[in-house]
């Protein structure tokens, strides 16, 4: 089923015209009906008046005045239409005749009651005929003394019909004119609104990634049309924010890669700049390899982060993981650096500590937390790892500091968040390792937080909801904290 496209402008215009048309037609019909009826009633009354006047002027004895026509002239009012009348005596003989419509044969009234009839005129058109038997003589005289006179008055209704026809035309023209005008006004009003909508949609069409800062001017719009475009503006703001975050992220990623790339390039260029002993080349290649490993780790984290960001359902293989072993294997590649920086590492995770989780994710979380500790703990410090799954603590990586500024604690998991440089050792910022940790924790249903502890130590803790009913006695109390933290 395909829905036909609807033109709002056409629909509204047609609707307005139809409503105005129906309303005015009804109004006109009513006006015409009332006016027409009134006019006809007055017309008839005049006829009856002429008849009464004529009867009144006939003497009680039935003798006609000398000039009945002249007497009746004011009442006859020929301007309202040609009028003729005829009077009969009681016996049916014609008493008097006034002839303008002489071609019509008038007959005496039938029956006692006065009546009105519409009769066709031989010249065309129609006339109104009033017939009655009236008492002669002036009003107020005793009816018994009066003589009965039959009266017929016929008047051409052409002028009345003409007037009514004019009224019809006037009402019709007014109705049609008003319909046209209201349609035009509606069309123009809607056209103005629609045009501003069209203008805005052209603006929207011209907005691209480089002009996201532009906003639609909704001030000119009617109130009803403003909300959707105001929403478009809000949407633009959100897109701009997201895009600027993405741009910042790309810039940060490229920055993240620049320093190791510069190192790699310098190693290779310097090494290849002259003839060297194989041992020197070997040393350079070793350095290069170390840089490549760092680049790999960055790329691996970026990919993992991108997968989290896109919301792809990452494959999940939940299995029983022995945390102590995981920590050992994650720390192994960091051992050299830790040793070079004089860091002491203690894995305090009980052999029994285990969780059911996705091993790949938990490994990335552990590696990044350990790598973070190895990188940022002041030289000569210590790093410890604990785990207490029954109490909800999946992993806690503590180091001897320096402490993270309180203002930075909440934001340390933001991508490429740069903290005061006092806590940056090998790199110049936190990169994306911690961002990845947070993202991974969220997908595992864990929470991660960073805390400063008394004495300058720093703890990163990954927690989950404590397992209900987990036996607590099975977990050995934690060993006393090592007191060698830097102050």
């Amino acid at each position, binding site marked *: 089923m395909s829905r036909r496209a609807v033109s709002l402008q056409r629909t509204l215009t047609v609707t307005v015209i139809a409503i105005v048309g129906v309303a005015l037609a009804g109004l006109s019909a009513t006006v015409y009906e009332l006016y027409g009826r009134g006019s006809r009633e007055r017309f008839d009354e005049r006829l009856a008046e002429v008849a009464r006047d004529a009867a009144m002027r006939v003497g009680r004895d039935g003798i006609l005045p000398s000039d009945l026509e002249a007497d009746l002239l004011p009442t006859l009012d020929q301007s309202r239409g040609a009028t003729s009348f005829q009077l009969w005596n009681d016996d049916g003989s014609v008493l008097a005749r006034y002839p303008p419509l002489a071609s019509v044969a008038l007959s005496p009234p039938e029956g006692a009651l006065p009546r009105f009839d519409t009769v066709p005129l031989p010249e065309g058109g129609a006339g109104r005929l009033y017939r009655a038997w009236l008492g002669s003589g002036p009003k107020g005289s005793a009816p018994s003394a009066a003589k009965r006179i039959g009266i017929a008055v016929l008047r051409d209704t052409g002028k009345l019909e003409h007037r009514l026809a004019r009224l019809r035309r006037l009402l019709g023209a007014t109705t049609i004119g008003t319909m046209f005008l209201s349609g035009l006004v509606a069309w123009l009003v809607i056209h103005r609104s629609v045009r501003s909508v069209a203008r805005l949609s052209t603006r929207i069409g011209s907005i691209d990634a480089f002009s996201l800062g532009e906003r639609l001017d909704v001030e000119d719009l009617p109130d009803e049309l403003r909300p959707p475009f105001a929403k478009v503006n809000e949407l633009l703001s959100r897109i701009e924010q997201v895009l600027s975050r993405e741009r910042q992220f790309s810039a940060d990623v490229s920055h993240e890669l620049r320093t190791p790339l*510069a190192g790699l*390039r310098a190693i290779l260029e310097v090494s290849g700049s002259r003839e060297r002993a194989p041992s020197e080349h070997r040393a350079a290649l070793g350095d290069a390899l*170390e840089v490549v490993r760092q680049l790999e780790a960055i790329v691996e984290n970026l990919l993992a982060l991108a997968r989290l960001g896109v919301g792809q359902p990452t494959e999940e293989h939940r299995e029983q993981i022995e945390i102590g072993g995981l920590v050992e294997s994650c720390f192994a590649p960091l051992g050299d650096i830790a040793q070079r920086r004089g860091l002491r590492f203690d894995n305090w995770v009980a052999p029994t500590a285990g969780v059911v989780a996705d091993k790949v994710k938990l490994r990335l979380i552990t590696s990044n937390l350990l790598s973070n500790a190895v990188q940022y703990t002041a030289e000569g410090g210590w790093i410890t790892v604990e785990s207490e799954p029954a109490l909800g603590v999946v992993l806690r990586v503590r180091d001897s500091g320096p402490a993270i500024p309180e203002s930075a604690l909440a934001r340390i998991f933001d991508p490429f968040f740069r903290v005061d440089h006092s806590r940056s050792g090998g790199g110049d910022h936190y990169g994306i390792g911690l961002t990845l940790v947070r993202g991974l924790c969220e997908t595992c249903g864990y929470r991660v937080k960073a805390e400063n502890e008394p004495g300058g130590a720093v703890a990163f803790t990954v927690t989950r909801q404590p397992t209900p009913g987990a036996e607590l006695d099975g977990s050995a109390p934690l060993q006393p904290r090592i007191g060698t933290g830097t102050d």
Partner: protein
Amino acid sequence: MRLLLIEDYLPLARSLTQGLKEAGYGVDAAADGETGLALAEETAYDVIVLDLMLPRADGYVVLERLRAAKSTAGVIILTARHELPDRIRGLDLGADDYVTKPFAFDELVARIRSVVRRRQGLPHNVIEIADLKVDTTARRVERGGHVIALSAREYALIEYLASRHGETITRAEIVEHVYDFASAPSSNVVDVYIGYLRRKIDREGQVKLIHTRRGIGYCIGALE
């Protein structure tokens, strides 16, 4: 020429130190801002290559403090931050040049030469003293049209003397500007190398260009 490299990314710092030493510079390296500042206070470096994002006092702070302490060392910022505002801020704080990572090693060395040249007020890379030509780009020394083969240290010494030709230069200045700390010169190493240079440059029958200012130091030029 004495260089100070302040760079916290160790693989880069190691290879740059090696490369710059091989290019004939005396190089000291610092892995954080404060160590770098301390070194710069002790020694009058010719050029400081400065990373921006450093632990303990970032590059801008280091640069500000250097200039506040009236250091005249040429400063080349070497950083991954390539945005325009960063460059402008760095140059306005008194850096002589701004190189973004990754970079070509040869270009960095060329920029170091350029900064050195500007510091010394030299218009180009060939210093001419009478018929002696020291080409600081090709690192080549000619006299009377003949190329003179020199060791790296000999070249470094003649380049430094030539860059200040006409002036008397003390042994201490030579030690400070020509040899790096690590080589810990013995007390007479300057005299020994001056001797080597004389044998190669001021041969018999030629006008002597290297002169001894007894009790003070040395001077190069065709003055006497």
